[in-house]
């Protein structure tokens, strides 16, 4: 369960988040929708611990543990995962090495045994097949020369390997065609269950046809201004954010 209370945060002295209250109970998938500049990405970065964002008030706990005091890697071990809107390319870092290092770091952080190269390969191949990823993507540099869709699939592959209890998907649908969108959504849906929650951040309703959320929240100007069921997404699609703003 992710619980955010009264969270305010600023970057370079400019307040972006102005008091976020949000609860994502274990086993649920929630969506956050909002126009550009509403603070969606800032929320994902603050929760995952990016430098340069200062939390000025409020709390955020994952399964009762305060995550805001943790280093990014500790948050990962605690079960948090961020799928990036723009995954970073790492020339010279082999994807297989990266994935195995990450997996073993997280397993170590959780007090689990590390996997050897053979065990890792077996697991990675299995997960990659489910995401229709060719095996040569293991041999390439992390995200180097990957298409937009391949990068997003690589994010989902990392999520599938690291088995977070709480995943934040930041604009995972951006730059995806319908086929890739479907593969990525299937990957997320396959994770759904009583021990997995997700916060799906998106600008458009389209993604929510594939990953159907339990709740939808509308973020505007640094605050959650409206919450509702999946139908709220359709409403926004039909009427635009302006209607919510007018009502709020």
């Amino acid at each position, binding site marked *: 369960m992710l619980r955010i209370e009264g969270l305010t945060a600023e970057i370079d002295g400019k307040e972006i988040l102005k008091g976020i209250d949000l609860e994502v109970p274990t086993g649920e998938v929630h969506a956050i929708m909002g126009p550009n500049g509403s603070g969606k990405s800032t929320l994902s970065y603050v929760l995952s611990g990016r430098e340069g964002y200062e939390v000025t008030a409020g709390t955020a706990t994952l399964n009762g543990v305060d995550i805001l005091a943790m280093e990014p890697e500790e948050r*990962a071990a605690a079960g948090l995962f961020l799928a990036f809107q723009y995954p970073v390319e*790492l020339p*010279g870092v082999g994807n297989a090495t990266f994935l195995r290092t990450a997996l073993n*770091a997280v397993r170590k952080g959780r007090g689990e045994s590390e996997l050897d190269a053979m065990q890792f390969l077996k697991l990675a191949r299995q997960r990659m097949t489910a995401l229709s990823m060719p095996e040569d993507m293991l041999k390439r*540099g992390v995200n180097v020369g990957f298409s937009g869709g391949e990068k997003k699939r690589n994010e989902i592959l990392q999520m599938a390997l690291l088995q977070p209890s709480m995943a934040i998907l930041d604009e995972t649908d951006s730059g995806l065609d319908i086929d890739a969108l479907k593969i990525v959504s299937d990957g997320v849906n396959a994770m759904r269950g009583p021990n997995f929650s997700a916060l799906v951040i998106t600008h458009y309703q389209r993604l929510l046809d594939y990953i159907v959320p339990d709740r939808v929240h509308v973020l505007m100007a640094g605050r959650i201004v409206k919450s509702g069921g999946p139908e709220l997404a359709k409403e926004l699609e039909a009427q635009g954010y302006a209607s919510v703003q007018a009502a709020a």
Partner: protein
Amino acid sequence: MTTAAPTGAAGFLARYEGLKDHLPGARKPWLNTLRADAAVHFAARGFPTRRVEQWKYTDLGVVAQAHFAEPLTMVEGALALPVPNAPHRAVFVDGRFREDLSTLDGLAYRALGLAQNLNEAEPYLGALAKPEREPLAALNTMLFEDGLFIDIPEGVDGGLLELVSIALDPGRPFAFHPRHLVRLGAGATLTLIETATGRGQCLHNPVFEIEVAEGATLTHGRLLQEEATVFHLSTIYATIAAAGTYDNFTVAAGPRLTRNEIHAALTGPKAACHMNGAQMAADGQHVDTTTSLDHAAPDCASRQTYKTVLTGRSRGVFQGKILVRREAQKTDGYQMNQALLLSEEAEIDSKPQLEIYADDVKCSHGATVGALDADSLFYLRTRGIPESQAKAMLVEAFLHEAVETVTDETLRGALTRALDAWWSRQAAVA
């Protein structure tokens, strides 16, 4: 009342005067002349100062002011050797060949201690070095005691050979100046891995004279891993004939001050020279790679990729000169040097220098300086990878481009281990 022993150039010149009748080959007129001429050059120039263009960024003041004695008298006996990188190796202790510690049986060519084989080496000793131009080569010529003399006949595959240099700490500053001669006949090949270790306050001042004949290939990997009290000043002269290849990869990761100076000349058509390397310095250390490449024949290719990683208050230097002579048409030259600064106090000076007199050439160079990418670091950390490990991965990735130029797997493994060992030491200190 006592008089202080002279330091710097005067100290070495005094030592030469005192030792010249006892140095190896002291009864050979040709060698006496060579040494005496070098002494004249060294007396005239002394240690280079920063007023000399080629030494603008590297200050030898601390070397020039020290008082270095000779190594102790050679003591036979067992010694802890570094882990071997090759089955065959020639071991030098304080610059002196130690046949008893070397494993050279079954070689298809000559790999000998220079001091005992000066007559064979006469035609080649001093053939390439320029003591009149480089004071450190003059110092070496004046005082060298020993070195490795490798002579590979035409068409022979020399396989893999390791040159191990160990400097022992006698408890007082000392200097040694080995002279290494490497000759590859037409079509011959050799992979030479050089491992330099040492401790104590010492100056290691080797000079290499390397001749690569037509169609021969020399792969020269260098692991300069002495401790942070050692001054390593090496000068390599290489000449590469038609269709020959000289491939140098240097890891400088350890000494207090490293100068890796290479002069290579491509003298016949379709010769190639690859000079790559990774140099690392931590707090209080200085690393300097200075290359000079002479394209003197048409259709030759040269490739240089140097990476510098600096932490703490350290300084790195890269100077790379490429000369393309009028007759060197169709030259294909490439030079890239990149520095990664891991602290605010680190400093890199980079000076590419292209002199092109031919009109049909392809020559490019580039230089970058930067810190670790914050986005990359954050990305790795969100995947659970601790900060120090994430940094290590990014540094390794930075070095990867240079290391991947090494095709010999044994050599690449040795280089990678040397780089990892350096990084582990930094991580342990931090």
